[in-house]
């Protein structure tokens, strides 16, 4: 039985080879699809590598809620997030954004030890969010960036950081949804300009986040995100793809 099975496989392979030679097709190594990450599609488009770039700095300036959404969408199982120097952070919003609170460290006040604390965190924490209360000089920033590159952690700043590999500037975050007092704030529209090496002068995005939930009953809200590239951007995208 085993012998005839092997023969049949060999015969099938020979037939395939013959067919390939006849039509001039060559076989290519199977490319495995990239492991599917639970990153919701719009956010994947906003972050070029589907995640905050590791080993370098990103900035998300102008909207805490967008920062949390991005963290919630890109934190993989087992990855830690530390919030340093953000005494005003609403931690319930962190939870609702889908960040695993089991792996969150919150260091609201660092005093003058900000650089040392962030440097220590870089050794073991994958995402370090540095807020405005963590005072850093330009020399500190350079040193921390070098350390992040060495350790492969993602540094995320809520204040501008010169030399950041990815900068998301939220020009306007518009909250809506009360409908004259019948509902509550449940919709957000972010106008974002993304700056990175590949983006040239910057690309514009619009993200709409809607919360669908009953009045808070302890259930997790379903968050829906939609992303539109701005109109002129879409045209330029089409042009690029036409040229290619």
């Amino acid at each position, binding site marked *: 039985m085993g012998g005839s099975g092997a023969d049949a496989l060999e015969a099938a392979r020979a037939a395939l080879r013959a067919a390939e030679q006849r039509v001039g097709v060559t076989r290519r190594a199977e490319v495995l699809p990239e492991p599917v990450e639970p990153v919701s599609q719009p956010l994947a488009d906003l972050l070029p590598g589907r995640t905050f770039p590791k080993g370098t700095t990103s900035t998300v300036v102008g909207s805490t809620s967008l920062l949390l959404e991005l963290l919630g969408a890109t934190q993989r*199982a087992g*990855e*830690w997030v530390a919030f340093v120097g953000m005494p005003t952070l609403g931690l319930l919003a962190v939870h609702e954004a889908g960040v695993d609170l089991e792996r969150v460290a919150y260091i609201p006040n660092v005093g003058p030890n900000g650089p040392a604390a962030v440097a220590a965190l870089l050794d073991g924490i994958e995402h370090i969010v540095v807020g405005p209360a963590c005072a850093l000089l330009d020399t500190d920033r350079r040193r921390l960036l070098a350390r992040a590159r060495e350790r492969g952690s993602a540094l995320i700043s809520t204040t501008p950081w010169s030399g950041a590999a990815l900068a998301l500037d939220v020009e306007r*975050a518009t909250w809506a949804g009360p409908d004259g007092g019948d509902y*509550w704030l449940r919709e957000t529209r972010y106008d974002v300009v993304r700056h990175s090496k590949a983006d040239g002068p910057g690309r514009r995005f619009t993200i709409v986040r809607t*919360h669908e939930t009953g009045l808070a009953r302890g259930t997790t809200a379903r968050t829906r995100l939609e992303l539109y590239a701005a109109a002129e951007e879409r045209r330029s995208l089409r042009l690029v793809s036409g040229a290619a």
Partner: protein
Amino acid sequence: MATTRTAVLWVPDWPVVAAMAAAGVDAHVPAAVLGARSRGGQTAGHSVVAVSAVARAAGVRRGMRRRQAQERCPELALLPADDGRDAREFEPVALAAETVVAGIEVARPGLLLLPADGAARYHGSEHALARALVEAVAERTGYECAVGVADGILAAILAARADAVVPPGGSRAFLAPRPAAELVHAVTDPGGVAAVREAVDLWWRLGVRTLGDLAALPTPVVQARFGDLGAWAHRLARGEDERPPARRRIEADLAVAADLDPPALRVDVATFAARRLAEELHEMLARRGLACGRLRITARTGGLDGPTDDGATLERVWRTDDAATGGLSAARITDRVRWQLEGWLTGAALGARRAARGADDAAPAVAPIVHLALAAQEVVPAGTHQPALWGAGAGQDVRARRALGRVQGLLGGDAVLTVRVQGGRDPRDRVHLVPFGEDVAPARDAALPWPGALPSPAPPTLLPEPAPVRVLDAADRDVVVGARLGTSGEPAAVVRDGADGPERVVAWAGPWPVAERWWAPDGRRRVYLQVVLEDGQGLLLAAAGGAWRAEAVYD
């Protein structure tokens, strides 16, 4: 065939006995343990899960509602349920039993399984063994217990309830006349009780009323009709559940303590003593090849009013999750103690200074520490710690924990916080912040409904100090909330401190009144309002005492 004789040591009404011991309730006071609040149905609310003998004589039964139980017995002491306490308090009983029989299995708090063969031979007879066990437990812990010996676990458990010894081979006959409902006593996990009750109820309706009836049925039929639960019950009813108890080695908690003379008023002095204690504890753990799951730090402060004042006891428990990496080092134990003492001594010193300034804040005055104790709890043999099989690699967590530990060393123990969600209504109350590594349970259950809680999404930015604002209507009059919770007008503009002029409101939601704990002195009444300003930003405003404050920003 050699039979496996099993002895069972049973302490009647363990949860209530443990709760009474922990709460210091006297044995003659009727007491009952109230379970967690169940949800829905007719049994919503707290119900009694365990009753002391005195309360039972007064007519209180398991499963009664709180009010019903108090109706039967008004002087009933109601104690909260706590699985951790039950297990903790049972440990001395297990240790006492181990002085008589080597190797025991704790089936559940209140119930011990012991192998009886060898021990009975050693003590002369099974009756002598039972007597020795009862005496050892009574002498060392003061609890009354009953011991039964039989083949098989169910028979032994039921024998313990009757304080009897069933002769070898007599288990089946002993079980046969008993009602099938007694199977419940052999269930060790609380979730299984309901399933067994349901099955017993079904058998009753089918005419299978006693364990003997059940045992008389052919095995394959029971298995086919009632599945695994049926097969388990059938095996028990036939007295065939003979397995030797899983023995375990019990490790007593290790503790070290020192009196500080002269009393330590400064952190560095106390830390010096703590370092010596930490090294001693670490040495004890290392010498015995043990690791601990929790570290309890206790400090007693001296009184301010001379030697008659006992002072206060300050205690904190730290989780030491990295048992896999070889337990705590002496330096880490010292660090933990130092952070904690810093918190106490500086907190107390601040309170004293505030009191000296004449503030009416009743903070305790600074008191020197006279006694310091460290205890290693949940002691297990080192190296038996089982890392998680699924999920992220344990190495990742260990790295993160080390990094956080270093930051704690840099900034102090209370600077690094971990976050849990707890019950509550406003975004501040719903978050439970605990210093990293400390073991504190959330104050309120997040799974309860919490009516009136603010709707999701929660504000991403909370203002540390709520800022006073003015809310104006279209005619530039202040918007006030009346006694009947109506607003005097639609909010049209908000005036914030530091802003140049009023900011127009483009959308608003609310007002939502929240009256929390109005029956208690710490009650709060607020009216919430959400507004969206022209620049798209949302604000969460709260009115209390006629003034509006901005609590949080939606950005």
